[in-house]
């Protein structure tokens, strides 16, 4: 029986299934509102299985009912932004889609991973409409921003990405907060290996990474990075690895902020978020978080 559901099989959904298959993380069911799309992509992937050595099945489903038995569900339904558009512009359009999915997943026993943009707002919306516990609804904010930060650091330092941990917290927007003090090369703080000018350049690149890809490719937003991030979160949950990844979730008093979703490092396991880790932040950094939280609350309330 499948333990992973993917809802919405556009670029992000389909590539998440692809990465999950490539790493043999678990069996996947895929659902899409467009009839036949999930079935077609699933069949295409399974026909690659003999060559790629997949040990699990991937199949398309026609009804959201079949999602109920899975232990993790990736929500990648919705539209993506066009060049020049901000993530928040998608809120109203995608909220409707998220509402429908959330309603049908009330009482879901697993963990939901939200990939739909604007992700922090979608996490808030999904949690509200589904009634699931905050520890069971996580979004790809910081985990994607961190992987981009890791890549940029690796390239600038000439050191393999595998050696590099990077932490990005806060809102998934240009207000994201790359934390230099919590970013390290095999344990060594990045600031001891890189001067401030280079660090500033890398941080700037991380902040604008999503926009840059939209600008470059014009007709689509990024999906390899987001799909890899989604597959990583899925793996941590279904394999109960206790991996520490910064994901977006609805806060409950962290840094004095409540009822708003942003990213912080969390320990992920079979029950979703098992622990939240709070980095030591400066007053200025806390102010940025508060500003982000206020903006998110106000967009959310006015929608």
């Amino acid at each position, binding site marked *: 029986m499948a333990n992973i559901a993917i809802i919405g099989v556009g670029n992000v959904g389909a590539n998440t299934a692809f990465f999950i298959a490539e790493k043999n993380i678990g069996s996947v069911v895929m659902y899409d509102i467009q009839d036949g799309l999930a079935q077609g992509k699933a069949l295409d992937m399974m026909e690659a299985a003999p060559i790629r*050595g997949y040990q699990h099945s991937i199949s398309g489903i026609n009804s959201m009912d079949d999602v109920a038995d899975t232990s993790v569900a990736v929500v990648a339904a919705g539209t993506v932004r066009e060049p020049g558009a901000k993530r928040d512009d998608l809120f109203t359009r995608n909220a409707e889609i998220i509402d429908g999915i959330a309603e049908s997943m009330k009482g879901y026993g697993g963990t939901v991973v939200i990939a739909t943009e604007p992700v922090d707002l979608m996490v808030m919306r999904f949690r509200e409409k589904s009634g699931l516990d905050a520890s069971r609804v996580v979004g790809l904010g910081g985990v994607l921003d961190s992987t981009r930060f890791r890549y940029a650091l690796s390239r600038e330092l*000439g*050191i*393999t990405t*595998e*050696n590099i*941990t*990077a*932490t990005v917290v806060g809102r998934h927007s240009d207000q994201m907060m790359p*934390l230099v*003090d*919590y*970013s*390290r*090369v*095999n*344990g*060594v*703080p990045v600031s*001891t*290996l890189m001067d401030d000018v280079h660090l500033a350049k890398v941080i700037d690149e991380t902040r604008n990474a999503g926009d840059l890809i939209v600008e470059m490719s014009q007709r689509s937003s990024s999906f390899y990075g987001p799909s890899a991030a989604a597959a990583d979160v899925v793996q*941590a949950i279904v394999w109960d*690895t*206790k*991996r*520490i*990844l910064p994901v977006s979730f609805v806060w409950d008093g962290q840094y004095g902020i409540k009822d708003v979703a942003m990213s912080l*490092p969390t*320990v992920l396991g079979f029950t979703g978020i098992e622990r939240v*880790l709070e*980095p*030591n932040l400066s007053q200025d950094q806390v102010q940025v978080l508060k500003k982000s939280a206020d903006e998110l609350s106000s967009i959310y309330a006015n929608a």
Partner: protein
Amino acid sequence: MNKVSVIGAGNVGATAVYYIAEKNIADIVMVDVVPGMPQGKAADFMHAAPSRNYNIKIVGSNDYAEIADSDVIVMTAGMARKPGMDRMDLLKTNVNIAKQAAQAIATYAPNALVIAVSNPLDVISMVTLKESGFALKRVVGMAGILDSTRFRYFIAERLNVLPQDVMAMVLGGHGDTMVPLPRYTSVAGFPLTELLDSDTIEQLVDRTRKGGAEIVSYLKKGSAYYAPAASVAKMVEAMIKDEKRFVAASAYLRGEYGHRDIFLGVPVLLGRNGVEKIYELDLTEQEQNALDGSAEAVQEGVKTLESIYTPG
């Protein structure tokens, strides 16, 4: 296809071959003095090839000539440590083995990179360097990566997090005087010191220092080989794939950290050219003193070495 030769087909050597084969990193030659033993293990590996999807060849030999044109050579030959035995006790036996191997490497594989693994590691690295006449950056000792992987595991176990999320730096000689650096150790980017109190850290540091001995005390008749072999395979892969991997390894110092003409565990960049860079981290006075103490212990081993053989 790249070629890796593993000298010494005992537990560490054979397990390193296993990890290298499982990732299809390179063709492998296993050399050992025991007649038939490397041939037998190589054949056994190849019988597993169809089930394990090996695309590489593994051959065994008693003849050093078989290592010809290797890209990387892993030197594991030597006696393993017995319970109650200090690493230095191994010196005399293992120096002679290393000497022969290094001469063979210089003859048959003059362009190879060499990873020294036999203990006492920092001293054996020196013998290998001197006997091979290789450039300094082409000889490196496997130590820091093993000491770090143990420290990482102990921390992960204590915090109930994934071991891969823990990164650690252990410098100094590969012995009881090694220098784990909690300040340069992190859990998903968090400084270790934010997650554990200093007493707990000190316990884990102490366990790391005695990590090799802990395994010996369980096994009684042998020493660790899974973690050492995993560390070897990581270094081989970094070199073959030119990964530019930042790890602690025993490298020849020429003034870095205030030491010269000595192999000592320091942070290095590993790639296709061997030790491509040595990083000098800022150390506190206490950390520097610990490193100096460790260097002294290694230096004593080198002195003993000089009394028992003349390089040539």
